[in-house]
């Protein structure tokens, strides 16, 4: 599907290599060199054979091996997404539970309003606000710009990641918080919590012993989706903070009709999404014995 959809886009990869002034002979030579002059079916067969060997080939434009470039870019996108995810969890879980427990108090309502605001504001806007405040005005942190030597300059790399991670963490956290709050509210109104309270447990104890595990099941499935969409959507944050991640590689590849790069990035992204979904399923089964039993039966 990836293969066909890419080739349905108007344009020719040879064009990306040749500017205005190129002769038709140069265009023909470039097509021949790239293999884009071959019949589509022949190109597809070659694509399948190479894919089976986990060989994505080399970029049409840079000539660099696609897999090496993806690994290089993942060293930015993966820590960015995972750190943002962890921050989102650290913010969303306690605040979501507090928002549910204090639902009828001003503090609980305030958390709900702020989280709603966080969901409504686009991620790039949060990024720009953070850059303006912490980088341009206060000069506390850099406005992104990952170091040339990457993680070998780990201190510069870490400081370059602070604002992008904060951006992802805040936006994802706001969204997850709403799910945690809703799941906690369901738990609070459940019969088993009422029974536990009637048997003498305090609310925190009843929540810890019976509520958290039950409430976590629906939240984990949402977390899987959030993590996958943040991984795919990191392109926006990478652009605002000028980070050389997978998203910018994909965007440039599409602009240049660099099929090997685009196919490689989409394949790896799809793989990551499937892995995240698989991990979420496992965690759900660990949390909920009923799911394990339904599989067993």
């Amino acid at each position, binding site marked *: 599907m990836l293969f066909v959809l890419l080739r349905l886009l108007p*344009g020719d990869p040879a064009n990306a290599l040749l500017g*205005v002034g190129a002769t038709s002979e140069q265009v023909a030579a470039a097509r021949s060199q790239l293999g884009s002059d071959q019949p589509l079916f022949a190109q597809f067969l070659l694509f399948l054979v190479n894919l089976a060997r986990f060989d994505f080939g080399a970029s049409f434009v840079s000539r*660099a091996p696609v897999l090496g470039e993806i690994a290089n870019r993942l060293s930015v996108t993966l820590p960015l997404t995972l750190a943002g995810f962890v921050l989102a969890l650290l913010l969303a879980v306690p605040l979501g539970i507090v928002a549910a427990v204090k639902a009828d108090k001003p503090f609980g309502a305030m958390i709900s309003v702020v989280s709603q605001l966080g969901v409504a504001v686009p991620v790039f806007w949060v990024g720009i606000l953070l850059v303006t405040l912490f980088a*341009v005005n206060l000069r506390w942190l850099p406005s992104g710009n990952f170091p*040339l030597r990457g993680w070998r300059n780990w201190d510069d790399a870490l400081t370059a990641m602070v604002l992008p991670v904060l951006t992802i963490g805040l936006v994802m956290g706001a969204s997850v918080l709403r799910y945690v709050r809703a799941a906690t509210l369901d738990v609070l109104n459940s019969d088993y919590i009422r029974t536990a309270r009637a048997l003498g447990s305090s609310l925190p104890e009843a929540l810890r012993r019976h509520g958290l595990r039950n409430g976590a099941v629906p939240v984990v499935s949402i977390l899987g989706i959030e993590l996958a969409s943040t991984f795919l959507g990191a392109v926006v944050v990478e652009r605002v*903070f000028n980070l*050389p991640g997978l998203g910018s590689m994909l965007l440039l590849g599409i602009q240049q009709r660099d099929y090997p790069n685009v196919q490689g990035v989409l394949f790896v992204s799809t793989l990551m999404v499937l892995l995240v979904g698989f991990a979420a399923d496992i965690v759900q089964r660990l949390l909920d014995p009923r799911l394990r039993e339904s599989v067993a039966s």
Partner: protein
Amino acid sequence: MLHSRKLLFSAAFLVATSLSPLAFAQDFDPDATVNIGSLYEPQNLDNTAGAGQGINEAFNGNVYEALFRLTDDGKVEPVLASDTKVSDDGLTYTFNLREGVSFHSGEPLTSADVKASIERVTAEASKSSRKKSLATITGIETPDDRTVVVKLSQRSISLPYNLSYVWIVNDAAGDITAKEDGTGPYTLSEWRRGSALALERFDKYWGTKPSNEAAVFQYFTDATALSNALLTNAVDIVTSVQSPDALQQFSDNPEFTVSNGASTTKELLAYNDRVAPFDKIEVRKALARAVDKKRLLESIWGSYGQVIGSFVPPTDPWYVDLTNIDPYDPTGAKALLAKAGLANGFEFTLDTPDYDPHPIVAQFLQSELAKINVKVNLNIITANEWYTKIYQKHDFQATLQEHVNHRDIVFYGNPDFYWGYNNPKVVDLIAQSETAASEGEQTEKLKQANQIIAEEAASNWLYLYPQIVVSTTKVSGYPVNGLNAQFFVSGIRKAD
């Protein structure tokens, strides 16, 4: 008395030393790293392999040198060629190579390297934009290590200019898409795709030692992110500001210097001169007169940029101010349309690339041309579609495009070019200009050609982009014109 003489002498000595070049030299840090922000990331490191304009910016004159170079003020001067002899018939050029030049790998520069370097550009697989310009070369001989003889099929007055685009590469270097071996004042120290490219001073450089130790080109895809990097001192210089909105914050701030240099990038409304009604000169002239170009330029770039009357920018030797040929005159435009039999106006489709500034320009044109009853239908297309539909298939009525190169009036001498302008007299003049015996003759021929294309309004040249370089006040000595996207870093000084 003796004491006061001594004092006077000491004072004079102090004044003299403080004004000496040595004292000036101490105003900057010779071991500084200059951080340069750019929007033009090279796609690979070989300018014959479709690397894009970013590679010229980073490598021309910095990592690689040529026999000649185009200086920042548009002059062609020798670099690796110490001496050039041209035969009386203009068909044989003999270049003597500079002594004592070595590549970064340590191997000495020889005539065989020069021959191989020229042949890289003219090779079948080459994607160089200069390939066609060097097609007159019929053979290259290397009688000894220091001499290169280039034979031509016909005179080519622009040969030294065209050779300024030919990097001299070590013949033994092999594939240079991910490495380099040039003779320039810098070597490539590190390159991270999508991020940055670092150059380091080459201590065995044959010429003047660079004023800094290293230069790092940091690449951005977003103009706002680039501005933020300058504001936060993550970069010292921005090579070419492409967003006029970003300028205000720097022009009002004493910590920054805004340089308004000469550009070679022209924004034009290109008609397909092969098709009606644009095959009529009156129609093209009418549209040229119907657009208030000064207002268009001001609305996009404020006080920056320049209105031009033809395709030739002021840095080309054959520039003449032709803005008065078709001045803004909507009444005159209507009269010209009536003369062409289109008194009630007409309608056409304007294929508009989807990136800035073209969509804004297209809307401005739509509003201006409506005033003379010409309806413009906008068709927004991607850069790739533009290339296929317009450049290759010539399937269009009119389009917008920016043309970046220096000395590119020669495109009007090619009737097969996408805009299809075909005046045999212009074709002849442009061909004759290339076979001219002197630069004076070449300039005269191209001035004549320029006058004709302007009088026939071959296209509608809307304005010349500004070339704006913004830096912190800590740095100086950088090129402000950036012709053909070159950015020489050797002379950049960074204060302590």
